[in-house]
């Protein structure tokens, strides 16, 4: 085990820890910050997988945009006298454990059972050198993946308008 592996495993643990903390925390703000660490860890893992652009994009979009949005949401939806404390219901705990546990067990079995190396393109791909770079992503985005690109833009537009409409209604009612 060299250093990269250690750092790799460190970031895995970080993500995991953040998720676990989110599960067991009683405070929403603390959960939000745990999410932040998880996202950070995942961004690092992206980099380790050879997708630097995505890692940076992840940090920018998720942490910079979505998380801030979440924090604003938390701020706006908490009672003025309490401080967003929440308890975990026992009933829900059971269902969560059943669902999550069951699914994890299932996925675990699948992942361990399946021999991914038998897939041909994985065999091919493990010998290739990574040729990623922002430039190639940009070119592919404009040529191969132009359609999803446009649709994504449209969706963003719709989301923008929608959120604005809904929020505007909210603001109107508030005033």
């Amino acid at each position, binding site marked *: 085990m060299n250093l990269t592996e250690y750092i790799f495993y460190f970031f895995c643990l970080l993500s995991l820890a953040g998720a676990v903390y989110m599960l067991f925390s009683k405070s929403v703000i603390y959960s939000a910050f745990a999410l932040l660490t998880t996202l950070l860890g995942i961004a690092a893992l992206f980099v380790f997988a050879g997708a630097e652009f995505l890692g940076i994009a992840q940090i920018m979009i998720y942490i910079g945009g979505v998380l801030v949005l979440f924090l604003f949401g938390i701020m706006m939806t908490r009672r003025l006298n309490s401080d967003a404390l929440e308890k975990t219901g026992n009933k829900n705990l059971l269902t969560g454990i059943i*669902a999550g546990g*069951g*699914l994890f067990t*299932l996925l675990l079995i699948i992942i361990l059972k399946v021999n991914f190396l038998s897939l041909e393109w994985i065999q091919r791909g493990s010998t290739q050198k990574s040729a990623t770079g922002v430039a190639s992503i940009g070119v592919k985005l404009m040529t191969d993946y132009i359609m999803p690109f446009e649709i994504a833009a449209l969706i963003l537009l719709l989301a923008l308008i929608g959120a604005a409409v809904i929020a505007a209604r909210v603001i109107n009612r508030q005033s």
Partner: protein
Amino acid sequence: MGIFLSKLATTNTMDFQIQLALVLLLLPLLSFAILFFLGKYLPRKGDITATLLIGIATLLSIYLFVDVYTGYDHYFQAEWFKLIKPEGYTTFTFSILLNKVSVMMLVVVTFIALMVHLYSLEYMEGKRNYQRYFPYLALFTFSMLGIVLSDNLLIMFVFWELVGFSSYLLIGFWFEKDSASQAAKKAFLFNRVGDFGFICGLLILWSKFDTLELSILKEQLTSVALTDPMLMLAGIGLFCGTLGKSAQFPLMAWLPDAMEGPTPVSALIHAATMVAAGVYLLFKIFFLLALPVLDFIAIIGALTALMGAIAAITQNDIKKVLAFSTISQLGYMVMAMGVGAYDAALFHLLTHAFFKACLFLSAGAVIHEMHHIQKEMFSQGHYFEFSTLDMRFMGGLRKKMPVTFMAYLIATLSLIGVPLFSGFLSKDAILIKTMDWASYQTNPFKYLIPAAGLITVFITAFYMGRQLIMVFFGASRLVQKYPAAGKAFDHASDPGIFMKLPLLILATLSLFPIFSFNPFDAAGSWFMLNVSAPGNHAELLFHYLVPFATILLGALGLFLAWKKYAQATSSLAEKKEGFWYALSANNFYQDYATKHYIEKPVLWMANKMHITDQKVIDGVLHSFVITQVIIAHIAAFVDKYVIDGSIHLLTYLSGKVADLFRKWQTGGIQSYVFYMIAAILAILILIIKN
């Protein structure tokens, strides 16, 4: 008329006399029809019309009488209808016979009817329901003529019943009076009981001979012995009809009560005609009666004669005395029939018709006069209640009503059987023949029958003498009891011409010369010569012995009556106690017996059956209804709990199932997500398993 009748299927042609007889028959019917429907509009309610029609009928009957007696019999038969039998037909015929006896009866019926019509013109004047009186009389006359003319037993029976019905109408003429309607009912019912026997006799005859035509029966009876048991039964059955109609022993209680009717009605029906129909029937069926049956008839007749006479002794009602007297004289006639002397019986019928009608009409005159006296008394303010029929308030009427007295006297003497009167001839004929018959019988007890006849002569004399004395002789008992009636009594007098004329005519007909020029012997009478019964001719001894005995007994009876009543004019000394008095006064307790031994059990049984009927039928109904109610309740229960229950069960189940599924609609997102995940897990597991 002839054209109409010739269209019928006839076995022989209808000669003029038969046609005349039919006209004769239908004249009273015409009178009835006119008066019944149009009587209200005619002047005097049509009584003159009725009398005229009956007068014409009388003339016709006299013509037929002369014709048959100087000529020969007439007979006509026609077919009425056919019934189909397994082999061949049964033919029902009707026939008319005009022989010496039937034309005699025709004359009797129409003549007495005419007398009664004349009499009623005055007697019934002013009485209520006047417009119904003459139609009923006409109907009765029509029915009686039908019996006389018919030679077919079935047709005779039809008219027989009609006569019974007409007598019911006439007896109950004043039906507002309860006793009158009861008497009418009683008469009809007693007749009906007799007619039941009559019907049985008819049925036996029809089943044996397949016909009810008397002429055919006469022929067919040569082949059958008379002592055939069925035939004897038939004879007794037909005799039962006579028992009812002629008021013989078991069925005699209706005749005294029938005096509730108007007096002319009593004269017509109960003296002369209807009660004689029984005797006429016996004459018609005489050929099929065997000796034992005839003995039975004779015994009944003798018994009735005696009983009627005994019962008449103690009667205080003037009409009831005459009613019992009629019963007694009818007993004589029936006795004579039983002995075989139908000629004597019919002769007595003829004479009896005249003198009894005369007696009744004179009694009616007396009653009429007593009514006037009573009315005058009341108008003078003396309200003394007495029955105008009660002889105890009569007396001394001889001087006031001489014509009535004369008629009454002649008729009474004729009834008793005093020589020089018609009754003597006929009664002696009967008694001689009876004695003669008894002498030829092997059984010495048969002498009881003529003995009964002779005793009855004595008793008859006694009670008729009593009546004569009580009504006409002595001083007026009414005035003795109630002196204030004296002035009204002084105004009593003979009735008017319409009442006097019939009295005189009938009284004249009760004298001997009409019937025989020999006042002492009936054998020489034109009647007996024409209608003579076969049989042993009486010994000469009896010819002298019997009349002597009757004269002696009659005188004895009159003497006793005079002794008892004429001398005791100041009081009505009569022993009211005593066994014989009670027996006589209560008509041998026949009414009592009928009431207690027949009526009461029948009513009791009827009541019990009524109750049972109610219980059974109502019980059935109730059980039916209760069953229905129970079924309804069960149905309701089933409907409520089973049917509705199943529905409720369904709804309950669907509700519970829905509730079950409703729990899953929590409305919370997290649970929905959980369900999704669970489903996906399940699918994945399934996929992986496979």
